[in-house]
């Protein structure tokens, strides 16, 4: 996978991203239950924060991390040119400066982006951070042995498509200029108004060339953030972070605790059990990768004390049914519309964990302003489906006696593309005369099938998460015809190659006014929706427990999960 095409990496990255999202993205309050528990809610410095996780921080290398907005534990160690605004809800979906003095200055039609570093920035050893270190950090993310990051840099930087990283190619990337120690200039091959979002990713972390140990760098990455790694056991299973005394305080990371103790490799039920018991060190504990499941939620909501210790968040994410219009009978738009009308979103939401863990979706874009969310419901199914309307459409489509179709899904137990969801859809479509056969596949098999244009089924469950809170990375990979990959991992499920859609995507990418761009993404989403290539099902809601002594819970709409840099335990 490492040396394969951009798209294969994109798939790998997307799956990692989704894991990160599902695991690390469990808090983004729309409502504000963000006040710390306990009487004195003012956060103070000091104490040890314990992190109970299931997935170890294996790739603790800024080149290899695929994150939606800088990651959680990694963002304590890695600073980037820009970062996400560490605030609750929609305000947290804004991009703000981090190492740089602003979010970037575009020129030449948004194909050139210039950043200036703040003064006095230092690494954990006291040496200064320079613009050349950021360039080097980006270059090493192109090395095949350090793959894992998002594909955007390779796609966007001029002449970077075949770059193999600084170990093989000492000349480096000509697309990145460093005229002086505090200035860095990026030259892109096309206008990209969303470059400031990309600059939040960990690939924009400075890496001192003299300290680079290649694939071993992840054992002790050099810190530019508030904490440094003092212990890393079993490939990220146990991490101990202590204060980095050379950190020049930034506006974003609060860094209240003196020490962070990360313990991974725990079963998710154990994590939730320990957080609900909240005994000893677990009282000052959070998790950055484990959500409450439906059964655990049933227990927590019955207990006021526990319910007060749940952080709720919304991450930009959509679960949907995908159609492949090359496969009969889904070549007929009326059949696709009939399915859209027949769908019972209340039973799907229940299968996904109930109304507290999933919100019914009628738009492909997540229902957040930063994505440009424009409400629409083109094939209104109500809460429980419109079987009559669906039957009518089937008749028009030449199927007066209904039809039999196969729904492909994964057998993993994720409440997203899993048998529970598929069975709920099967039950709903039955009422409209659509008999659904289920084809449950082992998860890897399922992914291989749905992302290969040669094997893509006609009717399957899919999901998509945001790389950053904007319509661009949400719509383009799924609906841009030029992103259809013939021999590799394809994400354009509907194989849509509509010139008017492609042109609009290019036009929006030129905009550097992100609010204006958001509005156009929303309109484009609605326009694409008319083709009924997907049936949006639901947007997940993340709920996570935290310990009794934990204060200052901040959950942005960017990550949907509790921001570890804001948490206090005193």
């Amino acid at each position, binding site marked *: 996978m490492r040396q394969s095409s951009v798209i294969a990496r994109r798939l790998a990255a997307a799956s990692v991203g989704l894991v990160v999202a599902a695991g690390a993205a469990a808090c983004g309050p729309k409502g504000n239950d963000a006040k710390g528990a306990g009487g004195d809610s003012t956060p103070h410095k000091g104490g040890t924060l314990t992190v109970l996780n299931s997935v170890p921080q294996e790739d603790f290398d800024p080149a290899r991390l695929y994150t939606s907005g800088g990651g959680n534990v990694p963002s304590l160690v890695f600073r980037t040119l820009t970062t996400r605004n560490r605030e609750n809800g929609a305000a947290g979906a804004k991009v703000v400066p981090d190492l740089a003095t602003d979010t970037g200055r575009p020129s030449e039609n948004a194909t050139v982006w210039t950043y200036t570093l703040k003064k006095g920035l230092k690494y954990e050893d006291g040496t200064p951070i320079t613009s050349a270190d950021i360039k080097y950090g980006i270059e090493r993310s192109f090395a095949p042995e350090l793959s894992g990051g998002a594909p955007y840099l390779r796609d966007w930087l001029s002449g970077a498509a075949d770059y193999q990283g600084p170990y093989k190619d000492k000349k480096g990337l000509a697309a990145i200029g460093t005229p002086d120690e505090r200035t860095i200039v990026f030259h892109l091959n096309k206008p990209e108004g969303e470059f400031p979002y990309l600059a939040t990713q960990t690939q924009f972390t400075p890496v001192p060339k003299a300290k680079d140990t290649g694939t071993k760098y992840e054992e002790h990455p050099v810190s530019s953030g508030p904490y440094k790694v003092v212990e890393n056991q079993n490939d990220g299973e146990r991490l101990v972070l202590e204060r980095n005394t050379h950190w020049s305080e930034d506006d974003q990371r609060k860094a209240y605790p003196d020490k962070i103790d990360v313990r991974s490799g725990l079963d998710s*039920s154990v994590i939730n059990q320990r957080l609900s018991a909240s005994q000893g060190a677990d009282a000052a504990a959070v998790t950055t990768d484990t959500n409450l*499941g*439906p*059964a*655990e*939620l*049933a*227990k927590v*909501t*019955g207990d006021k004390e526990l319910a007060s210790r749940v952080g709720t968040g919304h991450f930009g994410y959509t679960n949907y049914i995908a159609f492949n219009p090359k496969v009969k009978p889904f070549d007929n738009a009326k059949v696709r519309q009939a399915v859209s009308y027949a769908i*019972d979103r*209340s*039973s799907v*939401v*229940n*299968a996904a*964990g*109930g*109304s*507290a*863990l999933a919100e019914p979706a009628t738009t492909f874009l997540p229902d957040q302003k930063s994505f440009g969310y424009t409400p629409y419901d083109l094939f209104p199914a109500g809460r*429980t489906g419109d079987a009559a309307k669906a039957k009518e459409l089937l008749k028009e489509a030449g199927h007066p006696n209904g039809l039999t179709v196969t729904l492909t899904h994964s*057998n993993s*137990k994720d409440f997203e593309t899993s*048998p*529970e969801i*598929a*069975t*709920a859809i*099967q*039950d709903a479509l039955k009422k409209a005369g659509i008999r659904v056969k*289920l*084809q*449950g*596949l*082992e998860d890897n098999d399922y992914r291989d099938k749905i992302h290969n244009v040669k094997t893509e089924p006609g009717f399957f469950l899919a999901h998509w998460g945001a790389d950053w809170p904007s319509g661009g990375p949400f719509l383009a990979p799924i609906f841009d015809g030029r992103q259809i990959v013939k021999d590799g991992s394809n994400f354009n499920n509907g194989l849509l190659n509509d010139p008017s859609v492609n042109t609009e995507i290019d036009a929006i990418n030129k905009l550097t006014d992100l609010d204006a761009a958001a509005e156009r993404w929303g309109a484009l989403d609605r326009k694409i929706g008319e083709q009924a290539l997907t049936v949006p099902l639901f947007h997940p809601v993340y709920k996570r427990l935290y310990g009794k002594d934990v204060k200052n819970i901040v959950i942005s709409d960017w990550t949907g999960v509790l921001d570890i840099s804001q948490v206090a335990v005193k």
Partner: protein
Amino acid sequence: MSEALVATQAPGTDTPVPGASGARSFWRRLRAQRAALVAAVVVALLVLVALFAPLLTALEGQDPTTYHPSLIDSARGGVPVGSFGGMSAHHWLGVEPQTGRDLFARLVYGARVSLGVALAATVVQVVIGITIGVASALGSRWVDQFLSRVTDIIVAMPLMIMSLALLAIVPSSFPRPVLVTLVIGLIAWGNIAKIVRAQTLTLKGLDYVSAARLSGWGTWRIARRELLPGLAAPVITYAALLVPINISVEAALSFLGVGVKPPTPSWGQMLTAADVWYQAAPQYLLFPAGALFVTVLALTVLGDGVRTALDPRAASRLRVGAGRRRGAGTGSGKGADA
């Protein structure tokens, strides 16, 4: 002529051969074991429940696949509304969390899968076991060597791992219950084959078999007419003990997600969905677990009873109900046909 031969020759051998009088005494000895009797009644009830699942659910007024969203609390993760998992006159055992499907209907339909797959797999195992065992015992040295080594390999194969591997590679369009039956049946016939081979070798040396051979009978006819009746007792005994094992394997495979496909209910599948609900909706886990427990226990006790009744001299492994078997003639070892 051969029937008479069997009846007269069997006494004095080590092998109880159920002739007409054998069957009668077998029933007498089985009936005398109270535990086995209770187990037999339970098994009979379970079979009836499985056979009449549509009737029972119609009586309740439900079916196993209809969703009842109004019976679950969506805001609380889909936990059933009401006490004891939503038990009511309409839903005798309550409803399933997240879907509201009727638990009683799913349980009785699940019995069909559990019992059906287990019994069918046992038949497959017995047929293969007898064929291989007899062929091995009667064949030439080379045939015996070859078949015995194949049997050894089959016995050594880990059942669960092989089943998982086989079920994973077969296309999902193949009917799942049939596939599970075949996989279990084709992997776990080794012990039956070994028992049959050993028994056949013993029988082969007996006078009445030699007599048959001397009178010019072919191997096939000897096997069918002289050997098979003598194999009945050990095969029935072992088969009775295989059924509960097969039930557990089917449940385990469904639990691991490679068994029957949704929305067809099976006990193993119910268990896998229910394991996270043990705190919030305990009855969801307890009913399928209890059903599985009772079924396996009843079948095991019954299997043990059959074994005791067929071969009184072999002491019961479990000693289930041993204290109450006074009249059964177990201790004396001198049954009517022995």
